[in-house]
């Protein structure tokens, strides 16, 4: 099994000329030693895609804002489906790959981590900003003593 690690972060490019943003997605694999992964000259992290950053609101009415949000979510879903489609084929069928030990191995690459900040995870997991992607903790209970929940 080859653990695939995805990385993404929305970045501000300009502040006063249209507030342009870039949304890069990178990919690496888990079977790389940390010193090698942190070395830029070894190029262990590859750029996979630059996601589109559509306007958040249409500034017309509440209804058009809602439509705009749905369109943005659908576009993000479609683009990431396209990006990860090749990986899905390899997971289903497995792939023969050259390894660093100069042997050929049958590999199953599986997405196992996604490194991003909380705001990014809320967008990708489709949850509200006060929710947690791992479990169904209520927004009112976040940050409180979890033992009180029992």
């Amino acid at each position: 099994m080859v653990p695939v690690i995805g990385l993404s972060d929305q970045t501000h490019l300009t502040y006063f000329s249209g507030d342009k943003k870039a949304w890069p997605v990178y990919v690496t694999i888990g079977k790389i030693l940390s010193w090698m992964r942190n070395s830029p000259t070894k190029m262990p992290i590859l750029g996979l895609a630059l996601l589109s950053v559509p306007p958040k609101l249409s500034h017309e009415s509440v209804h058009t804002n809602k439509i705009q949000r749905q369109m943005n979510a659908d576009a993000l879903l479609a683009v990431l489906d396209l990006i990860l489609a090749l990986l899905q084929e390899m997971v289903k069928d497995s792939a023969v790959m050259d390894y660093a030990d100069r042997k050929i191995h049958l590999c199953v690459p599986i997405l196992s981590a996604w490194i991003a900040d909380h705001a990014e995870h809320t967008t990708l997991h489709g949850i509200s900003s006060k929710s947690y992607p791992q479990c169904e903790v209520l927004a009112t209970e976040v940050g409180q003593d979890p033992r009180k929940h029992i």
Partner: protein
Amino acid sequence: MRFWPQKLVRIHENIYEPRNNAYYAQKTWEYKQAQDSNIPDYFHQIGMKIDRNVFSGLYRVNPADLHKSDLLHNIYPGLFKHMMKWVVGFLKTPKWQQVFDNSWKALPSYQGFSVSKKAYQEVTQWQGKKMRNLGCCISAVFASALRNPNSSQQVSFKWA
């Protein structure tokens, strides 16, 4: 140290229900078929938006099990900021505060390491990189500020 995040997750799973994406997919399918108005309320209650998870359709991937490391917000502005509150609270004695600030300002910068020339409490906005640099040297600065306590200052150590 290596195993405590797993323990935390295990405790967490016992307390709160882990997100079950197969169940959510079934609920979404039911909503698309019958337009049941209770289903959006259910998703709203658990803080989810219907059919917006980009990882839900992936083969052999459980979105809830994906590792989600966020060092910047968990460790530096989260945990480390709280720890600095304790440190500042412990340094309430003016002499210690002064020695701490002087040691902190006297640190020379070198490649990959730069500290602010202001005292800790004078800095209003901490960037992640500066917070990381502070984490590299805080124990040494703290130790130098607390060296050679006199008999009245030793009381604080006994309380701590």
